[in-house]
C-alpha cells in the first residue's frame, strides 16, 4: 500500500482552514487598525471584532456581550476559576468542585488555589470515563463557590452529563463552569438552554489559529477583571485585540457549528470502523464509553507495547497520533485521565489516541487499519512484556 500522510490528531490542534485564513488576511496588512482608535481604520477593526463576537455568541446560544475573547482555552479556564474563586470568597465561599480527569488548565489552577486557602473536591469518574451528577450533588456544600466539569474529555472523548450537572448546581445556587475546548464544533451547545454559567473554548481546535480563545460569562456574573490595563473586552480583559485571530475564530466557529449532525454522520461510522478494526488485535481495550464520546475520538490500550514507540512508528508511516504514555508527556507517570478510569500504569503506557475529522477519508481509515497491526506486531516482537503476556506471566 502506498504511503499516505494522515493527520489523526485533531484533538491536539487543527490546520487553519482556507475559509478562516481568507477572512483573516485583510486584517494584517490593510485593516490593521487598533480597534480602540476613532478613525475609520480603527472603527473597521472594531466592527470586525464585534461581528466575530456575534458569531461566537450565536454558535453557543449566548448574547454577544456575554463573550470575552482570550488568548487561549487555558486562559479562559484560569479566568473562570480564579475569577469565581475571588468573587465568591467575598461571600465566604471558598470551596470548588471539579473532577479528577480535567485538563491541566483546570487541575493546575485548582491546585494553585488550594495553596491559597481554597478547598477543592475532586470527583472521581467511572471506569467508562463518566461523571455521576449525583456525586456532584453530594459534594456541594454551603460554602461551594463553583463547580467546573469539562464538557468532553480531551483524551478519551467521553461526553459528560452537563445539563444534569448544571441543573443540580442551580438548584443549590452554585455557579457552573465547563471547559468545552474539545466539545465546541462537535456537539450542539446552547449555554442558556443548558444552564451553563461559564464556558471556555479554544480556536485552534476548530480550524482557527493558535493563540485565540473565548470565555462565555453569563450576564449578571461579574467576574473580577482578569488582565488590568485598557478598556478592551468591556474592561475585563485588557490588551489590544488580536483582530485577525478574533475574526478567524468567528469564521471558524460559524463553520464548525454549521451542521454538526451532518458532519458527525460522516465521522462516526469511520471512527467506529477504526475502533472495531483495532479491537480485533488481541490484548487491546477501548478506553472510555463507546457511545457517550466525541464522534472523532478513539482511545485504545494495546498491551505489550509502549505509546511513544508506537507514535514514532506511526510517524514513519505518515500517521500523526498521540498517546497517554509517560514518555510522551515527559513525566514519569502516564496520563492522569487513563489512571482515573482505573487503568494500570503498564496498560496506560500503551495507549493510542486518534482524533479524526470529516476530512478523514475511508481510504485513510483503511490505511490506518493496515499500518497499525503491522506496527504493533513489530513492536510486540521486540517486547519482553509481550513475551510474558503470551506465556500468561504477570508483568507488573
Amino acid at each position, binding site marked *: 500500500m502506498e504511503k499516505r500522510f494522515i493527520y489523526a490528531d485533531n484533538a491536539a490542534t487543527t490546520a487553519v482552514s482556507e475559509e478562516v485564513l481568507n477572512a483573516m488576511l485583510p486584517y494584517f496588512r490593510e485593516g490593521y487598525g487598533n480597534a480602540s482608535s476613532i478613525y475609520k481604520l480603527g472603527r473597521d477593526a472594531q466592527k470586525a471584532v464585534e461581528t466575530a463576537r456575534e458569531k461566537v455568541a450565536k454558535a453557543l446560544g449566548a448574547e454577544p456581550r456575554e463573550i470575552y475573547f482570550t488568548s487561549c482555552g487555558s486562559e479562559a479556564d484560569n479566568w473562570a476559576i480564579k475569577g469565581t474563586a475571588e468573587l465568591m470568597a467575598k461571600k465566604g465561599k471558598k470551596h470548588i468542585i471539579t473532577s479528577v480527569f480535567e485538563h491541566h488548565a483546570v487541575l493546575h489552577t485548582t491546585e494553585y488555589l488550594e495553596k491559597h486557602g481554597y478547598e477543592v473536591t475532586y470527583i472521581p469518574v467511572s471506569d467508562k470515563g463518566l461523571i455521576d451528577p449525583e456525586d456532584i450533588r453530594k459534594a456541594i456544600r454551603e460554602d461551594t463557590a463553583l463547580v467546573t466539569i469539562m464538557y468532553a474529555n480531551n483524551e478519551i472523548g467521553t461526553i459528560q452529563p452537563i445539563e444534569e450537572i448544571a441543573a443540580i448546581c442551580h438548584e443549590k445556587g452554585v455557579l457552573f463552569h465547563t471547559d468545552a475546548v474539545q466539545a465546541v464544533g462537535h456537539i450542539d451547545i446552547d449555554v442558556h438552554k443548558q444552564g451553563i454559567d461559564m464556558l471556555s473554548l479554544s480556536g485552534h481546535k476548530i480550524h482557527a489559529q493558535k493563540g485565540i480563545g473565548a470565555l462565555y460569562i453569563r450576564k449578571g456574573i461579574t467576574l473580577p477583571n482578569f488582565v488590568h490595563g485598557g478598556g478592551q473586552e468591556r474592561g475585563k480583559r485588557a490588551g489590544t485585540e488580536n483582530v485577525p485571530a478574533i475574526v478567524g475564530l468567528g469564521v471558524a466557529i460559524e463553520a464548525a457549528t454549521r451542521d454538526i449532525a451532518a458532519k458527525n454522520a460522516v465521522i462516526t461510522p469511520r471512527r467506529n470502523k477504526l475502533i472495531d478494526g483495532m479491537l480485533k488485535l488481541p490484548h487491546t481495550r477501548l478506553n472510555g464509553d463507546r457511545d457517550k464520546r466525541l464522534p472523532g475520538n478513539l482511545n485504545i490500550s494495546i498491551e*505489550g*507495547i*509502549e*505509546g*511513544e*514507540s508506537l507514535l*514514532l*512508528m506511526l510517524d*514513519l508511516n505518515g500517521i500523526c497520533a498521540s498517546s497517554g*504514555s*509517560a*514518555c*510522551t508527556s*515527559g513525566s*514519569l507517570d*502516564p496520563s492522569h485521565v487513563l489512571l482515573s478510569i482505573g487503568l*494500570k*500504569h*503498564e496498560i496506560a*503506557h500503551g495507549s493510542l489516541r486518534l482524533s479524526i475529522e470529516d476530512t478523514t477519508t475511508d481510504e485513510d481509515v483503511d490505511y490506518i487499519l493496515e499500518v497499525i497491526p503491522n506496527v504493533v506486531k513489530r513492536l510486540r*516482537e*521486540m*517486547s*519482553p*512484556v*509481550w*513475551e510474558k503476556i503470551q506465556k500468561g506471566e504477570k*508483568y*507488573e
Partner: protein
Amino acid sequence: MLYSEKVLDHFSNPRNVGEIEDADGIGEIGNAKCGDIMKMYLKIDNNIITDVKFKTFGCGAAVATSSMATELIKGKSIDDALKLTNQAVVEALDGLPAVKVHCSVLAEQAVRAALSDYYTRQGIDPLPIVGEIKEPEE
C-alpha cells in the same frame, strides 16, 4: 521531543533485536509500570562477547539505547563491556533529550545484569566484578 537522526535510525532499524536460545548470560532490567523493560542476551566465548541480542519494551530512546549498547559491546571483551557507561551510549547516539538520559542508564545496567548472570552461571560471585545492578526507581 527532539531526537537525533542517530536515535531515530537505531529506533527504526534496531540492531541485534531478538533472543539467543543458548545464551550464556541474560539480564533484564526495568519494569512495565515505569514504562521501560530491557532484556539482554549474551553469548560469551573465551571472555569475548561473540553475540548479543536484546528485547525492549519502552520508548524510542529505550529502543535506541538498547540497540546502541549491543553495538558497542559486540565482539568486545567482558572487561570492555564492563567499562561501558551510559554516557558512552548517549555520545554514540549524538545525544539524548534530558528526560531520556535514564534510558541510557537502563541500557548500561542491562548489559551489567547480563554479565552478572553469566558469572552466576559460572559459579562465580558477580558482585565483586560487576557490582550492584541499579534498578530504576518507581
